[in-house]
């Protein structure tokens, strides 16, 4: 992937998406949060890159990468690298034909290729809070620690194109009361903020690529794996912000409550709390042929050689119990 010779940034922010109109004007929300986060990080001297993985682009529609790059100010574009993943990978890898977007397979593609000392896996419409930015500015993140942050949902009526701290931090703009993260896993909107040093992320082999039937729970499943692998999980101490929109999991959850099998987020009640996984060494489509398409864009061409087996039951693993009652991954189930 391009930019390998560039200095290694302190932080890689891995984001995923595509131009499918997810949640209304997805591009507008993405651009707003991208620019805000870039401005705040740059202002604090935090070297960073955004790794956008465009998973299974919609046929016939413009690429999200094109739309973003066209509307992004040059300094933001310079910090953005995109990986476009051939849609055939989705078809080849999915185990749930109802699932339209394998968010965590996409995120693994980004994690695998992120160059930062630390990797933050987040979402395109998530805005970093002031406390998190201060931590990054101080470079106070530690290796082998998974950092989590609670999410504050803000009302959809907020003017996303003119974001400022007063609006973000105004309690009156909260769409619902914020939830506190609780140990040991500090779960809750996990996919919006998981930060970990690159080496530990690679040691875990990122998110579950064995159970490819759901979007829900895959992020929490990583936390179970992390804890059982001896990593520490902490609340970083301040929130991220997210502006409510149509199609978010919060709204879809109510919509699909009667028929889970139809939910586009896949199974909600799989055993992500009690079973972990061991991905293949080739996780994150590492063997996919990469075709450079510009200075900061890579296209992953489809190859069956890069596709993991449809079924890999040896990768379904139980967390082994320790003396203190917690668990660590070991034996095959």
């Amino acid at each position, binding site marked *: 992937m391009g930019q390998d010779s560039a200095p290694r940034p302190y932080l890689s922010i891995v984001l995923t998406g595509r131009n499918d109109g997810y949640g209304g004007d997805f591009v507008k929300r993405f651009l707003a949060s991208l620019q805000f986060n870039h401005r705040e990080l740059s202002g604090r001297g935090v070297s960073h890159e955004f790794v956008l993985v465009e998973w299974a682009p919609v046929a016939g529609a413009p690429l999200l990468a094109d739309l973003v790059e066209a509307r992004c100010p040059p300094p933001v574009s310079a910090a953005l690298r995109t990986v476009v993943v051939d849609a055939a990978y989705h078809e080849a890898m999915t*185990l749930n034909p109802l699932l339209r977007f394998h968010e965590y397979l996409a995120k693994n593609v980004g994690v695998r290729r992120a160059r930062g000392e630390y990797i933050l896996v987040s979402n395109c419409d998530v805005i970093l809070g002031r406390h998190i930015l201060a931590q990054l500015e101080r470079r106070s993140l530690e290796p082998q620690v998974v950092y989590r942050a609670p999410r504050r949902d803000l009302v959809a009526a907020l003017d996303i194109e003119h974001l400022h701290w007063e609006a973000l931090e105004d309690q009156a703009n909260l769409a619902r009361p914020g939830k506190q993260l609780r140990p040991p896993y500090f779960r809750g909107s996990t996919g919006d903020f998981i930060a970990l040093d690159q080496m530990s992320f690679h040691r875990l082999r990122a998110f579950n690529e064995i159970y490819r039937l759901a979007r829900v729970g895959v992020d929490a499943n990583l936390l179970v794996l992390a804890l059982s692998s001896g990593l520490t999980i902490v609340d970083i101490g301040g929130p991220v912000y997210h502006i409510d929109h149509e199609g978010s999991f919060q709204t879809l959850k109510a919509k699909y409550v009667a028929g889970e099998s139809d939910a586009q987020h896949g199974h909600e009640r799989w055993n992500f709390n009690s079973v972990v996984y061991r991905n293949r060494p080739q996780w994150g489509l590492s063997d996919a042929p990469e075709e450079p398409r510009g200075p900061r864009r890579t296209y992953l061409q489809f190859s069956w050689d890069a596709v993991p087996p449809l079924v890999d039951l040896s990768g379904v693993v*139980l967390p082994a119990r320790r003396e203190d009652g917690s668990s660590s991954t070991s034996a095959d189930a």
Partner: protein
Amino acid sequence: MIRRLLRGVGLATRGEVHAAEAKLRDGRARLEKATARLAEASAAAQRAQETRREDARRFKARVTELESDRQRHADRHQDAAARASRQIAQLTEELRQRDRQLEASLRQETELEQQVASAKQDLETARESLSAIEVKLDILEGAANVLDVRTRGLRPSRSDDGPG
């Protein structure tokens, strides 16, 4: 003079005789009184002696009775002590036996607790294995569905089936 003369021959006057007779009577009377008092005293002494003898007899009898009571009590206490000793020995033995039973129960309880802990562990392991099996079944079911869709996609259309 006459009196002196009479005395000289050993005679006394009537007066003197009367006086002597009176003295004699007094003496006799005193003697009788003394004799009577002596008799009374003797009788009283006899009675007192009898009383003392009677008291002594009663005392002795009482002593004998008390001695007998004491002996009876002593015997009873000795019997009671012997019975108590036997009971103590019996109770001590029962206590030892109960101690042994208690120890056996405690051992049994410990063994049961270990068995329960082991069963819980087995149950937890079984639950975990079941969770893993459910995940595997999900995967297999998903794979089957996907392969089904792919296979149907490969099915030749009617026009490809050949002539007719």
